[in-house]
């Protein structure tokens, strides 16, 4: 049977504040274990939390960018559960009065725009990290706790169950990530755990209003695993329903290696978090004037930037969409254009050579060895006819590894294009003389034969002959 897929996502993102949410400890990732800690984040007896104002500001920013209503009065609550990475054995979070509610985000999937509603955004503290002695939890006989991450500020962004496919889930997650990056409130590095995602998935027969029984999938730590995890879970639930079975409400974990979801705990085993208002913090009262100020100072967001790239630079919606889906790529584009690069050419190079090289090395544009300035200098050499497009690709390759400027490479390797017509004419004439058969074929109407002749000319000049001139001069002499 064909079912409607219903998905809601919970996205957790670490905020890139300098200090933790309730104390002054650094949030730096990768520090030596248990060095970014103090009595407050270690939850020692007698300590009290103090809210980091920056966290509230970042949360309001995210709320506004995701079209939420900012609640003028919100508060923190304690979520009680025992786990050794949680020193107080409760997580200070927000329960019934989160900082932002009732938002939405429009995404594009297969050329269609779709609105995903956002239930709420709340602030909370991250937990520490367990380091097990063995390769797996079950094979370990002890575990150590690293509390560096304890108290790093998190935002949890909860969507309505409006998502209908794994592609939509991925598109939504990518767009939320892009917005958070544009706001500069989070690094959104899934590989470092600064962006994490849980998915609630259920199926129902088309046309049925009531939701089916859902399973919550945890441990979806990359875009790929979000998509694969959801796809797997949908098939698992379809199989159960097709066989007349019932889906069990439970929490499942995604196993990236095995490519399956597995049960973690059932509804009966679910925690009773016994929320209570955090008595050590006062309610957060956000001044509407402050919200207005933050709103007025929001940076340009992906949709607006895409529109600007289309309007100002004549890029296609598709190209503009790809370039603006990452703030860093869009910044690279803007910097290149500011360096007098032709927008369309820059866009083609970004989506072509640059992207190809980044992907093959598995790095982001932030680590690109060729700077926007260097790229535009390379493109200027093509524009001026000093090198051909083809040579430019070879030069780019060389720039990537040597980090030298394009002009230096062109000079060192003698790659300057031959645009001297007398030099080209001599070569054209020698090639015509040496290939009478091709000349005859061309004259007999075989247009393709000219390609062979051009190839011979390029071979003799090692690709340096100006292709336009070669074409013109060759046709003149035939």
């Amino acid at each position: 049977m064909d079912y409607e897929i219903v998905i809601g996502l919970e996205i957790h993102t670490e905020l890139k504040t300098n200090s933790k949410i309730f104390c002054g400890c650094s949030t730096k990732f990768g520090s030596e274990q248990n060095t970014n800690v103090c009595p407050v984040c270690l939850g020692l007896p007698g300590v009290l939390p103090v809210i980091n104002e920056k966290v509230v500001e970042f949360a309001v920013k995210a709320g506004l960018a995701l079209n939420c209503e900012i609640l003028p009065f919100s508060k923190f609550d304690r979520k009680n559960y025992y786990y050794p990475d949680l020193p107080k054995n409760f997580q200070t979070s927000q329960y019934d009065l989160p900082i932002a509610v009732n938002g939405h985000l429009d995404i594009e999937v297969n050329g269609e725009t779709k609105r995903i509603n956002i239930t709420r955004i709340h602030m909370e503290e991250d937990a520490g990290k367990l380091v097990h002695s063995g390769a797996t939890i079950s094979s370990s006989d002890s575990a150590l706790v690293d509390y560096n991450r304890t108290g790093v500020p998190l935002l949890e962004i909860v969507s309505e169950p409006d998502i209908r496919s794994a592609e939509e889930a991925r598109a939504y997650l990518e767009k939320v990530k892009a917005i958070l990056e544009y706001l500069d409130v989070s690094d959104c590095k899934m590989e470092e755990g600064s962006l994490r995602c849980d998915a609630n998935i259920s199926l129902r027969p088309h046309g049925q209003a009531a939701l089916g029984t859902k399973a919550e999938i945890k441990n979806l730590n990359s875009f790929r695993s979000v998509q694969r995890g959801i796809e797997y879970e949908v098939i698992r639930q379809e199989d159960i329903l097709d066989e007349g079975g019932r889906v069990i409400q439970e929490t499942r974990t995604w196993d990236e290696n095995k490519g399956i979801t597995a049960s973690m705990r059932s509804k009966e085993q679910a925690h009773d978090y016994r929320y209570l208002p955090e008595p050590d913090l006062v309610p957060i009262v956000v001044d509407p004037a402050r919200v207005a100020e933050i709103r007025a100072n929001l940076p340009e967001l992906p949709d607006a930037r895409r529109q600007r790239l289309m309007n100002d630079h004549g890029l296609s919606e598709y190209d503009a969409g790809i370039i603006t889906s990452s703030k860093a790529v869009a910044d690279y584009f803007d910097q290149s254009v500011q360096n007098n690069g032709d927008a369309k050419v820059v866009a083609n190079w970004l989506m072509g050579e640059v992207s190809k090289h980044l992907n093959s090395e598995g790095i982001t544009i932030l680590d690109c060895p060729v700077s926007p300035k260097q790229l535009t200098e390379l493109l200027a050499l093509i524009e001026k006819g000093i090198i051909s497009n083809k040579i430019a690709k070879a030069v780019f390759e060389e720039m990537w590894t040597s980090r030298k400027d394009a002009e230096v490479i062109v000079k060192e390797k003698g790659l300057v294009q031959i645009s001297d017509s007398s030099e080209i004419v001599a070569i054209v004439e020698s090639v015509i003389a040496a290939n009478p058969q091709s000349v005859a074929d061309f004259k007999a109407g075989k247009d393709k034969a000219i390609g062979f002749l051009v190839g011979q000319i390029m071979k003799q000049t090692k690709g340096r002959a100006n292709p336009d001139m070669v074409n013109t001069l060759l046709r003149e002499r035939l």
Partner: protein
Amino acid sequence: MELFKHTASQLHEKIIEKEISAVELTKAVLGRVDSVDKDVQAYITRTSETALAQAQAVDSKIQRGEKVSVLAGIPGALKDNICTKGIKTTCASKILATFVPPYDATVAEKLAAEDAVIVGKANMDEFAMGGSTENSGFFPTHNPWNLETVPGGSSGGSAAAVAAGEAIWALGSDTGGSIRQPAAYCGVVGLKPTYGRVSRYGLVAYASSLDQIGPITRDVTDSAHVMNIISGYDAKDSTSINTGVPDYTKSLVNNIKGLKIGLPKEYFVAGMDTEVERAINKAIEQLVALGAEYKEISMPHTEYALSAYYMIAPAEASSNLARYDGVSFGHRVEGNDIIDMYKKTRSEAFGAEVKRRIMLGTYALSSGYYDAYYLKALKVRTLVKQDFDKAFEQVDVLITPTAPTTAFKLGEKTNDPLAMYLQDVCTIPVNLSGVPAISIPCGFAAGMPIGMQIIGKPLGEETIIRAAYTFEQNNDYHKGFATLGEV
């Protein structure tokens, strides 16, 4: 008169007049501890060496002609739930028996800045849960007025130390009466400030929305002096009040002409000792004679306050005490796995009353019971608060007994938690509404001290200090000193 029988303000005069040295005074108090603490058992940890070093530093300052504060060189005690850097802070619990905080509570820092001498860490009911100090995980404290009776609690060690001359002043903490009730039982002065007046940073939490640190002293004057030092906004405590601190000694005025006193009839509960009731009535008459106006008022939600408290405080406690799990500090009992370790650690190291309240609180917050218990209790708390708001529209202060009876015998109520809880019936509504209150001696029944509670408006410490001071100046109750069988 022995040095340890004086008040801090008297001793301060002697020190700055160079009549005595701080070291001399500290030795006198340490000597007193040596001779009587085996009977009173007020201290969990003694800090004699650092106390002498602190006293020596004060003497050096005085020799150099530097000005010193009123508590400089005056030996005092801290309740053992106030964190002290490098000094064990146990909360009278086996689970923290070896816990040495790496930081000072804000009040400890403030006292150190004033050169106060700390004699030791005072006994208490485990995690401040109790009204007799019999719930200490180590040993009970005895009331210096009659060693067979309890000193009250939970700040029983602090109150007994001050009453026995083992400290000139002390700090306690008050969640439902834990400063005022032991002060009443031990015949000393105990003040619970307005919630937020004194920083809670470094006070090991029992019930965060109710806990407040305050002074236990020999007289109202010393109470005002200690309040001057410990009060004030603290950036480390978001719930501390960000307004200036008045000089409380300016309220040490023997004049209450025109003061409007309210007597809430609901506080005179069944089971109240007739002698206690008589003493309060006599005190009211005297205050009226001194120029106060008096009227009986009604605070209709008083009877629900105790029940609400025993939902809210345990609920917060169940969460606050979750961190004692054996993982990164405190007592640990090894187990087969992490859950087993939690269970064994907490089963072994928490006492019965702490376990009782953790279970009560866990239950009150559980899904399906939350609305009926915890949420309902919060609503009652609001009603109790409104009772106070309305009362203070009519009067300046409220006067009630501090506790329905005088100190009871050790062991008398240990098997009857409800009877024990009833001892806090007059003090608990004050914590629920966050207002300040002071307990002062107002008489004796069968040789045991009776306490009178004066309750003020939010941040109305000055008014209750003035009323208490006036009463004190016209009576001698505070001048009596527990004999400790030394007759």
